[in-house]
Structure formats: C-alpha cells, structure tokens
C-alpha cells in the first residue's frame, strides 16, 4: 500500500504542478480589429449626436472568427456614438434559445433591435412580434422570409461572392492564355444555403466562359477540415490551374495542405476577407492571390443604420428621409494592388 500511496502522491503532485503551469498558458493577446472597422463618429450630418437611442443586439455565439467579428464590430460601433445605449443578449446555442433571449429583450423596450438570427426562417415570427410591438427590427445577414418581419435587412451577397471569384479566375486564366483549365473548389458546410448560393454563382459565371469545376470538396469552415479536404483534392488533381476556397478561416488549413504537398502550379482565390488572407495576398508569398469579401463590417453598418432608424433620420447621401428597407453589400475582390485599402476591414 505504501508504494501505491507514494505513487499516488507523486502523480497528484505532478498534476497540481502541471495545473499551475498550464493556467499561465491560457492567456492570449486580445486581437481587437474593431476600432478600424467602426466608422468614426465625426464630421457633420448624421454623425451629429441626436435623440438618445437604445439598441438591443443578439448574435449567435459561434466558434467562428467571422461571427466573433460581427459581435465585436457591433459593440465597437455602438460605443462610437454618444447617443447610443447598447444592450446585448446572448443568443445561446440554437434558434429556440435565441428566441427566449430575445423575448426578454422585447420586455426591456429598446428603440431598435439588431439581430443576426441562428436561422432566418425560424426567427421570422420573432421579427413579426417585435415589429407589431412597435420595435423596428434590423435583420443582419440571415433573411426573414416575411417582409413585414423587418424594418431593414442588411446582408452580404453569397451568390455574388461566387461571381466575383469566378470572374477573377477567368480574367487571370484568359490573361495567361490557358484554354482548358483545371479549376477546383473547396466549399464550406454543404448543408448551408449560403454555401449552395456561393457555388451556384461560381458555376454560373464559369459556365458563361465555357469553364467548369473539375473537382469540389466541402469542408466545415474549420482549419482542420480545410486541410484534410484540400489534401485529398490535391491527390485527385495532379495539375491544377486555379482554386476557389469559400472561406478564409478554413483557408489557413487549405494553404497548409498546399504547402505540405509542395504544390504551387496554381493560384488561389479566398472568400470572406480575413486579415490573415489580406496580409498573405499583400505579401504575395503564397498561392493566395485574391479574396472576395463577405465582410463582418456589415454589423457596424447595421448599428449605424439602427441608430438612424431610432432617430428617424435618413442616410445623408440619399434623398429619402428614411433608411432604405434592404441593403445587399457587394462582394468586392481584394488583390495585391488594393489590399492595403481593405486591411482595416479584415477580421
């Protein structure tokens, strides 16, 4: 028994020591890209402080850099206005949890609600309820099917991303004079509508030029799935001319797989517009030559517009006295030439 207890003591001591050591290893320097992504509240017009507005905000707590940037941007933009009070509620793990959280938000009577729903269809009824209660709803990125469920809808253009990526690839290949190119695609989660729209835009645009995708793998928006799917895609296609990867976050894994396989005969286009991707494009030392945006800066814009809605003001550059009902952001193409302009929008 003494041997046993001594062993146990040793093990216990080691465990405690390791625990103390590890606790020191959790710190991360806080990446705060948010300041650059907010629109400074200066100059004339709409930036002038107006009526005090309370904005309620809800977005899913996902494990993805893009969603994290959405929440950070919204917070930072709200903080930039002296006349905005920002109330955020946790959206929980699914649509039901978000609905529950939002109903507590309604009872606090905010002037405007900005939300990125888990699922636009499932939270449509919440949009209707809030609008009927006289609280304007700003839908961020995941559309409600019912037009009465929102005052403003602001979202990215998934189909347009595919179009932009394909357009860049076609331009490059035509400039190089490649007649029968091998084009590959690394998609995100295939069960999501946004992935299907991106692929549709990509395929449609390629088809207009007589090109098509030779092989396509769907990853899961995670770095490891990006690496694994790409490693297999590279096996399938010994020679490639161009790759479109839907998501820059999983793109870290995609680029890792490409360098591990020592492949560089092709160029790659990314998607979303992460800071890392923009830096890689600017440095021009990987196969990544461009990325098409789907920027989380839309959260900052949503807060600005929610404030204007709350203050019953219009967008100063438009003639109309009220904010429009629908805004779809263009998917822009970032290349080495313009990367420095976009770097501040990277997440």
């Amino acid at each position, binding site marked *: 028994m003494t041997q046993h207890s001594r062993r146990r003591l040793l093990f216990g001591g080691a465990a405690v020591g390791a625990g103390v050591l*590890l606790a020191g*290893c959790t710190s991360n320097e806080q990446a705060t890209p948010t300041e650059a992504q907010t629109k400074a509240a200066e100059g004339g017009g709409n930036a002038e402080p107006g009526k005090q507005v309370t904005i309620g905000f809800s977005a899913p707590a996902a494990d993805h850099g893009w969603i994290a940037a959405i929440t950070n941007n919204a917070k930072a933009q709200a903080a930039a206005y002296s006349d905005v009070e920002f109330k955020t509620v946790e959206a929980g793990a699914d649509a039901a949890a978000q609905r529950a959280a939002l109903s507590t938000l309604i009872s606090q009577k905010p002037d405007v609600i900005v939300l990125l729903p888990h699922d636009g269809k499932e939270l449509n009824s919440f949009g209707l309820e809030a609008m009927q209660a006289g609280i304007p709803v700003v839908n961020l990125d995941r559309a409600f099917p019912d037009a009465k469920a929102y005052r403003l809808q602001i979202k990215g253009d998934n189909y347009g991303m595919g179009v932009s990526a394909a357009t860049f690839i076609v331009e490059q290949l035509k400039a190089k004079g490649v007649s029968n190119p091998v084009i590959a695609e690394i998609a995100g989660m295939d069960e999501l509508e946004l992935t299907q729209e991106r692929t549709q835009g990509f395929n449609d645009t390629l088809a207009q030029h007589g090109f098509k995708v030779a092989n396509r*793998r769907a990853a*899961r928006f995670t770095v*490891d799935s990006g690496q694994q799917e790409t490693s*297999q*895609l590279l096996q399938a296609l010994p020679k490639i001319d161009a790759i479109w990867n839907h998501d820059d976050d999983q793109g870290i894994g995609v*680029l890792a797989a490409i*360098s591990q396989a020592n492949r560089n005969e092709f160029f790659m286009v990314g998607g979303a517009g992460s800071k890392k991707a923009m830096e890689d494009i600017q440095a021009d030392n990987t196969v990544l030559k461009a990325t098409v945006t789907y920027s989380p800066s839309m959260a900052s814009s949503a807060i600005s517009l929610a404030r204007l809605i709350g203050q019953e003001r219009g967008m100063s550059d438009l003639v109309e006295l009220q904010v429009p009902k629908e805004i779809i952001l263009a998917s822009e193409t970032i290349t080495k030439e313009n990367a420095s302009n976009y770097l501040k929008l990277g997440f």
Partner: protein
Amino acid sequence: MSDSPPTTKLPAQSPPVDPAETEVAGHKASAGTARLSWWHGDGGDGARRNLALIGVLLILFVIGAATRSDLYSNPDWVWANMLSILKLASVVGVVTVGMTFVIIGGGIDLSVGAIVALAGVWCTTVATQSFGAAGMIFTAIVVGMAVGLVNGTLIAYGRLVPFIATLAMLVAARGLAAEISDKQTQISQNSTINGIASNSLLGIPLLVYILAAVVIAGWVLLNRTTFGRRTVAVGGNPEAARLAGINVKLHTVLLYVLSGLCCGIAAIMLTAQATSAQAAMANLYELDAIAAVIIGGTLLSGGRGTIVGSLLGVIIFATITNLFAINGLSTEAQNMVKGGIIVAAVLIQQVQFGSLSQFFRRNNRLTTS
C-alpha cells in the same frame, strides 16, 4: 498478425470465477446467463477478422484503380496517394488507439474530439507558444491527460455512466476551448511543430511514424502487459475482475487518462497539419473513432478487441474519403457509404459469433462496477 487477444484463458491474476458467484454479485443484467462464455472459443478470431479488413482495403484499392486508371497507372502517384491516406488516418488513428482501450475496458469516451480541440487550442495560445515546441507538446499532453483524469474520476469514483460523463465533458471542453481562444483561430508560429506535418524521414511523413509508434505501443500495452490483461478483464466482467483482486476503479481512471494522452498527441498532430488550432476543430472525431473501433471488431460492450483492427478501421475510412475525393463524388454519398460499412461490419460480427440472441445476451452485461 498475431493480434488475437488473450481470450483462450483467463488473465493470470484472475482465477476462474463461478458463474453462479457473478450472478449473485451482479444485478439487473439477465439472470442465469453464463456471462463468461465469451472468454472461450474465439481464439484466433481477431486475426481472421483483420484479414477480412485487409481484404476490404484491397477491394477499395481495386475500385480506385478501376475508376481512376489514369492516376493509378503512375506508381509515384500511387505511393504518394497511399502516404496521403495514412496522413489522413494518422490523427484519428492515434485517438482511436486510446478509444480502443476505453471500449475494451467497458467504457466509452465521447469527449475525444473536444479534448483534441481543447489541447490544440491550449497549446497554441500566445503564452504557450512562447515556451517553444517542447512547451506546446507538454501543454497538449498534460491537458489531454488532465481531462482524461477528470473523466475517469467522475466515472470510477463519481459513479457516473461513461456515456453521460464524457458527453458532459464534450460540451464543457469545447466551451473551455472557445473561452480560451476567444473563438478565434490561433495560428501556430512554431516551425518545429508545423514541421511535424510537412517533414518526412526516408520518404515517409513524420505523422505516419507517430501513428505507427502509438499503434505499436498500444498493441504491446494491450497484448503483452498486465495492464492490457486487466483492461480485458475489467471490460469483460468488472465484478469478476474486482473479485480477482484488480483495482477496477483505479484501472478505469487510467484508461481514460490513456485516452486523454492519445488525444493530446493527436492535438499536436492536428495543429501541425492545420498550422493552427480553433475550438471547433476535430469535429465529431469521437464518432469516427468509435466507428473505426467497431468495424475493427472490438465489442462495444467491452471485454474484447484489437488495436490492429481499429487501425485498419481508420485506414478503411480514410481510403473511402480518398476514393470519393479522387472520383470527385460528393461528401454526402461518402457519408452514406461509411454508415453502410459500419452496419455491415456489425452484421458480419453477429454472423461470425453465432445467433442474434447470443449477441444480445453478450451485450447485456454490466458496463461499470
């Protein structure tokens, strides 16, 4: 391929147990069943099953060669492709070795994917990376083992059902990983760590060596040591094992620590492959590992299993992924085929071990003490 577990006789330290005695000690489980019948009569079966799995691999190879003869006609490509399959299998393979021990020991570990993510995230924080490659490896392994220790303690001493304890850990460990990483992707700046995935020795990737080392260590541990025999005994009949003088609780804890250790090693490998880590990575690895263990011939109810079978299971799944990729087929179809293979493997097991009713009786045993 002498991978057959020590099934023909009882482990050295456990004397033969009277079935009547276990019946008294046991509870709820079907009374009157000769619970120890599985000890006897299937010697050499593991080897036979492994041969069948190798047969499946050969069939998959032939299908690949037939559908993409243009690629398979190049021997260099075939070799590179086999290495790519092994690299694809390496991370899940290491996790599966730990899972095999846990399942043979009568438990289940649903938290392996979450442990890999947590260990990966923890070892790539800015603070950990400042300690260099050794610090990162140490952190990943200690985190993995610590989580395993919590799992094992909850199960053995807290008397929680393994399914529930590790399910809770799955959720909690991913939550902690998201907290530590602040939901951001953490890029590994360490070239030594990243080199684990990109470097080769004598033409074979380092990842494949790591997989081989873990598999060999696992095989020796299971088949040539007291620890292995105790694992089989604890999983086969915990009450009998206890009566035979085995500290079942402590052994259960050690099994989960072992699984955590494997997850820590896998976390390093996965981080090296992706050159980064995030809370969402290693998604559903628990299911991949359990599926590989099952088609490898390990009984989900414990008491019998083989490391080589599990390894072959992982390689079969990786080969299917590869086969679908080189033919440009969709991931959905691939998942359906994987599901079909799991069902087929279990059905074959049932046929091999006699009637369906016997199969269920065999499953109808205690899984924890």
